[in-house]
């Protein structure tokens, strides 16, 4: 356990490359994607996989991968983001409409790519671990593996998507607005430009969040399958293969013995009401949120990212994101490395950033020893 927090003695403080990196650092390390070419035929493997899984006696009417999108709906190139971005009519009156129309898709693309990888990695690793532990615990008596996979899919998709969405909002907002700001300098009075930047950011933030959420969801479903398969295999080896195998260890565990009958998972199938707990994860997705405060321009400073949801982009999904993730992190997301990912640097670097930028502008030295002199 000790080596979990072993830290490099010298942590070079990464350069502040932009406003958004400091926001981002609250949760993630400032890793930037190497820009790769898009692979047009890239499809999330989860789609194929969940198609192979027979639905469990209609218990699961809609898994997230079925309800949220279909393979055919996935835009295949990055240019498709242009069809989803919102260019507010107000920009017309400022004479900026055309300009932003050209600008926004590229900015959205860049802003998403900047953060999607780290956000998805983190969300997926957390959600996968949670789902693995809870589903295997709750379904210890379940003999039908399909039900186990289904429950795991529902849970991991919801958790990973929610975590990704809540985590990406702030850094994405900063990234979009700072990139827009940089791109439109000098086009008009700075006051109008600032209004325009905030308007456009506000209008498109949810689109970006939805794309990242979707990326996390896809990756999570893919990842959990490997995890569960591994665990089930181990379970079988331990208990012997039989048609009605279940996790006997779990059943006889003393802690479980103290659990009253009604609350215990029992050998065989779970009751419908028990299954429903996991089905309910489907009802959670962010997109169900109605949009209340659209088009609110914050009156505060430009850096304010407390921007209201502009509109719901329920089923938007771009493979911009899956491409970025696949090429960059497929190996990092192997089950075995999730722990090490948590442990070494992946998250820790953020502390350096947040402390640097938010707390100690006065310090010039990066090593405590240098302060020694007095």
């Amino acid at each position, binding site marked *: *356990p*000790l080596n*979990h*927090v072993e*830290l490099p003695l010298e*942590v070079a*403080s990464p350069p502040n490359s932009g406003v958004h990196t400091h926001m981002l650092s*609250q*949760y993630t390390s400032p890793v930037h994607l190497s820009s790769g070419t898009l692979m047009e035929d890239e499809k999330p493997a989860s789609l194929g996989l969940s198609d192979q899984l027979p639905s469990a006696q209609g218990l699961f009417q809609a898994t997230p991968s079925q309800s949220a999108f279909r393979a055919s709906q996935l835009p295949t190139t990055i240019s498709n983001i242009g069809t989803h971005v919102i260019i507010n009519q107000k920009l017309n009156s400022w004479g900026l409409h055309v300009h932003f129309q050209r600008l926004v898709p590229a900015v959205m693309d860049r802003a998403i790519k900047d953060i999607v990888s780290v956000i998805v990695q983190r969300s997926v690793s*957390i959600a996968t*671990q*949670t789902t693995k*532990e*809870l589903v295997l615990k709750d379904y210890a008596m379940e003999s039908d593996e399909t039900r186990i996979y289904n429950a795991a899919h529902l*849970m991991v998709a919801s*958790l990973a998507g*929610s*975590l990704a*969405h*809540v985590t990406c909002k*702030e850094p994405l907002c900063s990234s979009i607005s700072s990139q827009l700001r940089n791109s439109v300098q000098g086009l008009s009075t700075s006051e109008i430009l600032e209004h325009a930047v905030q308007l456009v950011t506000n209008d498109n933030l949810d689109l970006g969040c939805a794309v990242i959420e979707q990326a996390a969801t896809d990756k999570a479903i893919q990842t959990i399958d490997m995890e569960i398969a591994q665990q089930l295999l181990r379970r079988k080896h331990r208990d012997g293969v039989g048609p009605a195998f279940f996790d006997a260890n779990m059943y006889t565990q003393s*802690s*479980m013995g*103290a*659990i*009253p009958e*009604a*609350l*215990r998972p029992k050998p065989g199938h*779970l009751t419908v*009401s*028990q299954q*429903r*707990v996991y089905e309910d*994860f489907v009802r*959670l997705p*962010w997109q169900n949120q109605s949009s*209340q405060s659209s088009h609110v321009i914050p009156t505060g400073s430009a850096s304010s*990212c*407390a*921007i209201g*949801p502009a509109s719901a982009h329920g089923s938007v999904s771009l493979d911009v994101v899956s491409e970025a993730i696949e090429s960059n992190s497929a190996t990092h997301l192997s089950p075995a490395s999730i722990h090490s990912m*948590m442990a070494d640097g992946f*998250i*820790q670097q*953020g*502390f*350096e950033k947040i*402390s*640097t930028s938010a*707390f*100690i502008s006065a*310090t010039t030295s*990066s*090593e*405590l020893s*240098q*302060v*020694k002199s*007095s």
Partner: protein
Amino acid sequence: AAAGAPANKDRKMASAEHLVLDLSSPDLRENALLELSKNKDLFQELAPFVWNSFGTIAALIQKRELFQDLAPLLWNSFGTIAALLQEIVSIYPVLSPPNLTPAQSNRVCNALALLQCVASHPDTRMLFLNAHIPLYLYPFLNTTSKSRPFEYLRLTSLGVIGALVKVDDTEVISFLLSTEIIPLCLRTMEMGSELSKTVATFIVQKILLDDVGLDYICTTAERFFAVGRVLGNMVAALAEQPSSRLLKHIIRCYLRLSDNLRACDALRSCLPDMLRDATFSSCLREDPTTRRWLQQLLHNVGGNRVPGLQAGG
């Protein structure tokens, strides 16, 4: 209804079991959350207690031990933890922009209170950690709205983390450090209410008291000064609005930092003067332990000025 009567306790547990079962049903969940969290004798009226408490933090967290019987029940029953996670995740959309209503806040805090039992219990603590459940609370700690629903949410979330660090387990500390709890605590220490500042400082203190935690904070100047600056700001704020329990935790943090050679050197120049002069004399009059800590701290950093803490200054 004395909490000690065994028959009464059995009856309460039976009803608790029933309520745990109700947690898995969306229609019954809200009520079950409420009942479980406020069941007077066994479980204390948790939420208002946290909010209104004037006790010490230790006492605050120990109250949860009344919950202990409940933890294995919550963990081992089918779907209960999954249901509690749904409660948590379902309010993410109202965090930013801040739209959390008091009712939503109450409801999720009731769920958090139950998770705190699980975090406190020796049989479930590591399971809780291994399932990475504390990480779902981090978005709550990252909020900045000062409205009461958000304060309450942050405070209750910190309570869960506080329950984890209470047991002095290096593995727990390592987990929290590797998941970036420190910046989140510092954030609350900067902008929270007095009570949530106190809980956040308590968490940082517990982390520092572990060798792994002290090393972590003192490894770089950035980390040390991030912590030092926030502690210093809190000291300055305490001069305006004294709180002896918060001061106690701050002083303990400084004292522990002074155990590290380089940090101790740095403290020579950045320890607030207010800790060296008589600013907090009256605040510490009733607290010999903290007074002793402060003297030790000043001794460690080679305080040349004698603090005016003794009677008469």
